[in-house]
């Protein structure tokens, strides 16, 4: 990838308007309460695309909804039990303003949902979409993607990647689809000058120096691998965790789910998949009340071990992307940053 382009900020709105003709548009939008969330945009003129604040949600729900119907079941008589698939109506979508943490999380979800088996619902939503990323010039207060090594800038996974250079964006592409978009809408793009590329590098250097949190993630990974996390850390975490599941729901890489039947009538119903959390006591509970995991004591331990030990062992990288959302949401004080600090520095 050598070609880099310039998209003037004045051209962003017209550019998105063009792409919106063929794609549903999802971007960070600040709502009237002041919250910034990735939102489906119907009318570009009526919303404020907010690229200054971190979206409170990730892209998770767009590819893996909090609840979705896998199929319907019908049992009109004891000798008749049949199923009907539900058409996935999701349209080709352009995801705009995706930061490196959320882009990396999506690449991780690809592994979860497509490696052991190809999950049809996920695959359908993942196909035919365009990913336009945005590098982070200004890491937010709880960000630590420098420690998880997937930010503040990213150079793969996207179709187009933007870097804010003041009155313009520097634009790169990773996949051929990105290149096609640029050639199709060439009127919006100018070739980048050497000074633009230098300005991007300068922005990257500055961004790297702006992280406010220092998170010794590598050290925690090492301690977990060597089984050197003191039992007192797990005790304190499980005591303080309020079992709300908020960390798992907000986390862009927490993908555990449950499947259950939702009756509609005596004879019909839906088989529903919904988000689950490994910190819940029922997560491993079997019929007859057998539970092979002491969830009260070990639930939160399983969560951190999964992200920082087992995924590292399997794929050689942790499955925390350093977005900091769990730090914002956890009122029990048992988010991943506090776990890492307790483990590595002995402080809370």
């Amino acid at each position, binding site marked *: 990838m050598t070609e880099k382009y310039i998209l003037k900020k004045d051209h962003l709105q017209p550019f998105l308007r063009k792409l919106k003709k063929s794609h549903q548009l999802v971007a960070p939008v600040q709502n009237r309460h002041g919250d910034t969330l990735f939102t489906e945009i119907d009318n570009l003129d009526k919303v404020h695309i907010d690229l200054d604040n971190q979206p409170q949600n990730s892209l998770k729900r767009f590819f893996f909804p909090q609840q979705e119907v896998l*199929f319907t079941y019908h049992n009109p008589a004891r000798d008749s039990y049949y199923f009907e698939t539900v058409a996935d109506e999701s349209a080709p979508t352009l995801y705009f303003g995706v930061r490196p943490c959320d882009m990396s999380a999506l690449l991780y979800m690809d592994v979860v949902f497509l490696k052991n088996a190809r999950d049809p619902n996920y695959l*359908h939503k993942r196909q035919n979409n365009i990913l336009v990323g945005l590098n982070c010039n200004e890491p937010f207060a709880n960000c630590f993607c420098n420690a998880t090594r997937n930010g503040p800038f990213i150079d793969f996974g996207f179709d187009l990647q933007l870097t804010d250079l003041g009155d313009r964006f520097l634009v790169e592409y990773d996949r051929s689809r990105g290149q096609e978009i640029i050639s199709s809408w060439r009127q919006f793009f100018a070739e980048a000058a050497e000074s633009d590329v230098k300005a991007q590098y300068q922005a990257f250097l500055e961004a790297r120096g702006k992280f406010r949190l220092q998170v010794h993630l590598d050290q925690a990974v090492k301690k977990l691998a060597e089984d050197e996390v003191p039992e007192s850390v797990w005790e304190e975490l499980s005591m303080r965790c309020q079992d709300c599941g908020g960390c798992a729901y907000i986390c862009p890489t927490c993908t555990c789910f449950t*499947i259950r*039947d939702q*009756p509609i009538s005596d004879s019909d119903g839906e088989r529903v998949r919904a988000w689950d959390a490994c910190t819940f006591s029922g997560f491993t509970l079997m019929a007859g009340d057998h539970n092979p995991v002491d969830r009260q004591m070990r639930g939160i331990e399983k969560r951190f071990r999964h992200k920082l030990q*087992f995924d590292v062992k399997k794929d050689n990288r942790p499955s925390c992307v350093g977005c900091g959302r769990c730090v914002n949401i956890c009122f029990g004080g048992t988010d991943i940053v506090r776990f890492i600090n307790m483990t590595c520095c002995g402080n809370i």
Partner: protein
Amino acid sequence: MPSQLLELYLPKAAEIQEVIEENSQIKTFVLAFVDPEYNDGFSYEPGQFLMVSVPHCGEAPISISSTPVNRGTVHLSVRRAGKLTEAMHDMHKGDVLALRGPYGRPFPMASLVGRDLLFVAGGIGLAPLRSVINTCLATGHERSITILYGSRTPSDIAFKADLQAWGQRDNVSCQLTVDRAEPGWDGAVGLVTALLGHCTLAPHETKALLCGPPMMIRAVLGQLADRGFADQDIITTMERHMKCAVGICRHCHMDDKLVCKDGPVFTLEELKQLNVMELQG
């Protein structure tokens, strides 16, 4: 999208051909897929499991208890334990439930050839081993087979027809024990480990296959280790809560392994690398 993809979570209807009441808690359901073509093409290996759907009850993983040598039907032996299995117990011949699978890593059947075999089971734990035993017998396993089976009481003894048939084989020794005797019982009383203590075994030439409650597993493992069994010659099958059965939902996780995909069959050597409740006292 290719239809095969859409069907990842979609079960296939199967009709109950027969219900065998093994004891007051366990029934064996003899099943055939409603679609005759699918039924003809259906195959599996001992140790694999099926996800069973019952209307309004969702799904649960159940070990296959029949041998794949007998084609045309598949057996699921089910203990009454929760909502779905209770509902199954209320089903009769001609009723339809639904299945998807088979899933999971089977028993390493090839490695059993030419070895003495020791099967130790407790209660419903005989179900997956029954699939192995009947497969070995049907394929002419010549070396000695020892089957030790523990039940709570004589009326809890399941798979009586199989036990009787196995006992009649020249190369099979089939021994039963119960925790608590009842009038008319003149067999052994006590744990399967007591039976195991009286068995003559050649540890270096024997593969041991276990399935049963965790307490039994721990006691048997201790004794097998004392008798010089190597960890890779001890094989068991794990039970976990499962939702997807295809390696995505992570309900059945054991450290970095997933029971639905990496198991349910594991050697003791593999289990010792993991933090497994069944092995902890």
